[in-house]
């Protein structure tokens, strides 16, 4: 697991941490065959999120010596004994790491998941000593002799309590994230639009096109944008809306390398969520990476998308955020956090204008 070091912009107090920086870790312990794996799977199912990763601690068993191998075959080696798990390995990072980008929930599952206090320290939810009743329902018995901070033990008379508890935890974190976005908005509200925000000049042509765009009677929507190529210019569409700009992109750069990132705003708490990510290889070597989003209001998705690009090695000053319409507050927030990006915006819209462009473009 690669953890991402927090990024600080030039203005030290204005920064944005994406939700996956605040990873939730759920530990599930219990004896062999007590149903840890099925509970882990149940949790994944109940959350129904793309950001859940299960880490099975059995993969961290120490390599056995020949003597231990013999015992294991003779069924004498106690795999459930804490000494058999390489807690140092689990605690530290392995030399060869597989990068998992942006998980928000990590389920740590294993016989002794709650044994090492260093790991217990990192957990948000701890759950242990489970067994399965004859009827197939789950019953909690938290006193199974494992190291465990008792104040976090949850009564597991039904797994639904566990799921609710986890959902509450995640909800808290979502609220923190949304609150942070809100604060960034206040910080930025006072500032003038910085010079790296380029608003399209209001030529009669451009005003005419905007009039057509905003006219509710307009059936078909088209976008045109001019671009300056210098080195490899690639684009990353923030889906779903970003693909509205791809036609214009392909008309200007017919073979533009295009990555895609699907960020959706959660309907319930307005929090932007990263669902899908497919970026071109060597993106960091490109001269310019355009981020395409037809409309930006609060800028939450934009902040997240810029952050995703920077996490993948793209220099801040190579990013050009392209949008047809944006709210001033969102723009200021974006440029306060990332002062070196360039922004090309067609029209400054009223605050709180809902996202309508992609809805009209796709007709749904």
């Amino acid at each position: 697991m690669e953890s991402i070091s927090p990024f600080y912009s030039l203005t030290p107090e204005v920064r944005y941490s994406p939700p996956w920086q605040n990873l939730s870790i759920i530990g599930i312990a219990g004896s062999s065959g007590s149903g840890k794996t099925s509970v882990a799977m149940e949790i994944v199912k109940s959350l129904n999120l793309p950001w859940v990763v299960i880490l099975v601690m059995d993969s961290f068993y120490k390599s056995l010596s020949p003597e231990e191998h013999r015992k294991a075959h003779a069924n004498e080696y106690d795999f459930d004994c804490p000494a058999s798990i390489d807690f140092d390995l689990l605690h530290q990072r392995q030399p060869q790491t597989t990068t998992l980008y942006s998980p928000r929930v990590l389920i740590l599952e294993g016989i002794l998941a709650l044994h090492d206090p260093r790991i217990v320290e990192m957990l948000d939810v701890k759950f242990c000593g489970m067994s399965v009743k004859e009827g197939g329902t789950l019953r909690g018995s938290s006193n199974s002799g494992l190291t465990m901070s008792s104040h976090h033990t949850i009564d597991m008379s039904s797994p639904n309590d566990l799921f609710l508890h986890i959902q509450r935890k995640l909800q808290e974190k979502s609220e923190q994230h949304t609150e942070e976005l809100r604060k960034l908005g206040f910080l930025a509200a006072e500032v003038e639009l910085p010079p790296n925000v380029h608003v399209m000049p209001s030529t009669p042509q451009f005003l005419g096109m905007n009039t057509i765009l905003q006219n509710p009677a307009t059936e078909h929507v088209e976008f045109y944008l001019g671009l300056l190529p210098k080195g490899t210019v690639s684009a990353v569409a923030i889906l779903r809306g970003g693909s509205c700009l791809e036609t214009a992109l392909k008309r200007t750069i017919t073979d533009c390398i295009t990555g895609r990132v699907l960020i959706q705003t959660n309907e319930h708490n307005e929090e932007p969520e990263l669902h899908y990510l497919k970026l071109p290889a060597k993106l960091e070597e490109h001269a310019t990476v355009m981020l395409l989003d037809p409309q930006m209001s609060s800028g939450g998705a934009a902040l997240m998308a810029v952050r995703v690009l920077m996490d993948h090695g793209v220099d801040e000053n190579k990013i050009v955020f392209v949008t047809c319409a944006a709210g001033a507050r969102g723009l200021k927030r974006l440029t306060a956090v990332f002062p070196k990006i360039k922004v090309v915006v067609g029209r400054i819209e009223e605050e709180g204008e809902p996202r309508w462009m992609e809805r009209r473009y796709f007709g749904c």
Partner: protein
Amino acid sequence: MATKPEPIPSPAQGVGPIYRPDGEKPTATVSRDVSYENVHVLPQTPQLIALLTMIRDKKTGRADFIFYSNRIIRLLVEEGLNHLPVVEQSVTTPVDRAYLGVKFEGKICGVSIMRAGEAMEQGLRDCCRSVRIGKILIQRDEETCMPKLFYEKLPADIAERWVLLLDPMFATGGSATLAVEVLKNKGVPEHRILFLNLIASPSGVAEFAERFPKLRVVTAFIDQGLDEKKYITPGLGDFGDRYYTL
């Protein structure tokens, strides 16, 4: 429509107009036939074979790949639209004569299976100006290795529409099958789904055609088979990578 989708080699035949004798036509590999009434393979014309030759060539760069696959997509969309209902329509020409023609009837929408299917949206828009387009994101579930629905955004009235389902590569058909299930759950009757596809595997398309006998498949080519990694062979590699990022 006679041969069965067994491990027989893809047919090779002289490609060119009927009036030209076989000896004067170059030989090329053409699509396999399948004996399903609901699977329609585009006519294996010299144009289509030349376009497919371009996009199958591993030396073809992104710009050419986009250009030539867009042309095939256009052919697929045009053929797909032929399966939509039309009604008689009489018009008066500028010289005041009547012309008895037809007009399209019924509402349509496109649904692309992300990400490769999105490459087919523009071809559909070029033919149907303000067409509604929904999207479905299906990914392999790491735990079960089965295709899993991650995201969908579809027109609210999709149940009343003809749906053109877009996905260029049809290997095992896991994603397409799940996408059809999603559409059926939204109330779209099977007979109003048209699946537009560039290259299909013979086993995948046969299974799909049997599972959804009322749905129609329009494809440019039924290929030789699948390799051990479930890639279509000879195929063209990863369509999404070649179109968007390579």
